[in-house]
């Protein structure tokens, strides 16, 4: 049984113009999937359906075999980073938010909560920043803190929204290495509008633009073109080879 099972899901904010329509998606235990699609293509809607924040108009959603809102404890969610955001909060306090559910209302965080938070920060190499104010960190550092926050709940599925939108190419590279490492213990699903930023670490790609066009091991340019409604080169600004070239190599090798 899959971790995520979407069957014929239609969802959005307006019944007459759903953001996603008749979407089938299944995510298995060891998957590492990138869902790519243009802005407004329904990526966020898809995430909200999986997180149980949005009830679909039609279709069935099962996450870990249950209604999505009952499986949230098994999901580590990494929202999109807002780079310019200022907020007086320390790195450690951000990571501890991932323990809100296990800690419970009216309680302070336990020393165990803190120990786990610090351990995750250490695993991600940002332990030394724990007392710093979150908004003083670089984009890549913030990204790692948000992943640490998602990991403190010990999830079986990591869900990332536009994870590489605000980091430079070098940071992207080490970031994908990190995700690849995490993928040995949990399924990883990321959504992004930036096809050029999808690395060869990703095991499969799905394209979404209201419909989920392609999903699985094989992807070709016509799939992407259909998803975006325009030729592939235009979407990637002529650099599709890093993604597709790498995929083909691994397919044949």
């Amino acid at each position, binding site marked *: 049984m899959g971790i995520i099972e979407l069957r014929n899901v239609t969802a959005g904010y307006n019944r007459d113009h759903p953001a996603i329509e008749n979407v089938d998606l299944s995510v298995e235990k060891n998957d590492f999937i990138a869902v790519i699609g243009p802005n407004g293509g329904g990526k966020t809607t898809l995430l909200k359906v999986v997180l149980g924040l949005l009830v679909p108009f039609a279709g069935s959603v099962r996450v870990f075999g249950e209604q999505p809102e009952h499986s949230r404890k098994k999901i580590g969610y990494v929202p999109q980073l807002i780079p310019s955001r200022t907020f007086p909060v320390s790195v450690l306090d951000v990571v501890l*938010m991932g323990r809100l559910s296990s800690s419970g209302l009216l309680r302070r965080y336990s020393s165990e909560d803190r120990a786990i938070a610090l351990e995750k920060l250490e695993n991600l190499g940002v332990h030394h920043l724990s007392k710093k104010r979150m908004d003083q960190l670089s984009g890549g550092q913030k990204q790692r803190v948000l992943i640490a926050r998602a990991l403190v709940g010990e999830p079986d599925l990591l869900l990332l929204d536009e994870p590489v939108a605000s980091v430079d190419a070098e940071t992207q590279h080490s970031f994908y290495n990190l995700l690849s490492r995490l993928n040995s213990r949990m399924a990883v699903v990321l959504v992004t509008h930036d096809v050029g930023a999808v690395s060869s670490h990703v095991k499969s790609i799905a394209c979404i633009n209201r419909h989920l066009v392609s999903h699985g091991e094989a992807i070709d340019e016509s799939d992407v073109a259909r998803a975006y409604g325009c030729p592939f080169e235009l979407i990637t600004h002529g650099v599709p080879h890093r993604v597709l070239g790498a995929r083909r190599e691994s397919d044949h090798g």
Partner: protein
Amino acid sequence: MAEMLSYTFMQNAFILVTLTSISCGVVGSLITVNRMSSFTGSIAHASFGGLGLAYLLGVHPMIGATVFAVGSALGIGALSGRNKLGSDTAMAALWATGMAAGLVFIKLSGTYSADLMSWLFGSLMTVSTTDVILTGILDIVVLASVILLYKEFLGISYDMEFTRIQGVPVWFVRGLFLIMAALTTIVLMKVTGLIMVIALLTIPAAIAEKFSGSLKRMMILASALSFLFSITGLFLAWWLDLPSGPVIILVSSIVFFSVLALRGKTD
């Protein structure tokens, strides 16, 4: 100073601003990090409609103001959860509608205009024991709430969606915050009047935000600054024979703009 403090009305004024500083700093910090200062302005002005209606019906104006403030706070809160643009428009409409309704009601009730001025611009010289007790109770409620639910308040302010996914009853924590914001606005009307409440709630918190590593410290620093500005303003108003509300606001804003200028130089 000894002479100044020998008057009961001055003692009451000092006690009141000390007490309001606590809820002002705590709630003002939450309002500031949630970027909701126009929300505060809106509920302050909406409450004026309640004041007018209370005068017209012959009930205590404080009751009318409180009902309108809490009602509009929860109304805007419910709207903003669904529609950001809609709630922005609703806030602007409520701002003006509250004032207009209040002025019409007050005219119809034939209330003496000095009463009106004290609601608009504050009346620290006429603080009653009831005012002091109500403010003290609000402080206790506000402090108990943020101490017991600190991590939840931090969570909904920093990342509402993530906090919701964590299973926190976001509607409850946010509702509590909105009610506290409305009540603090009402209590502060005694200090600065409803027109300037927005400044006292946001200026100390905005300064504190620049110098605090956590929301907790921001709340403490904002309360301290609010106290400092209020006391300084009260002293100056006494010496210069000026109305205390505006002087408190001027003291706050002079410090605020100085901090901005100094920070701008060093950055």
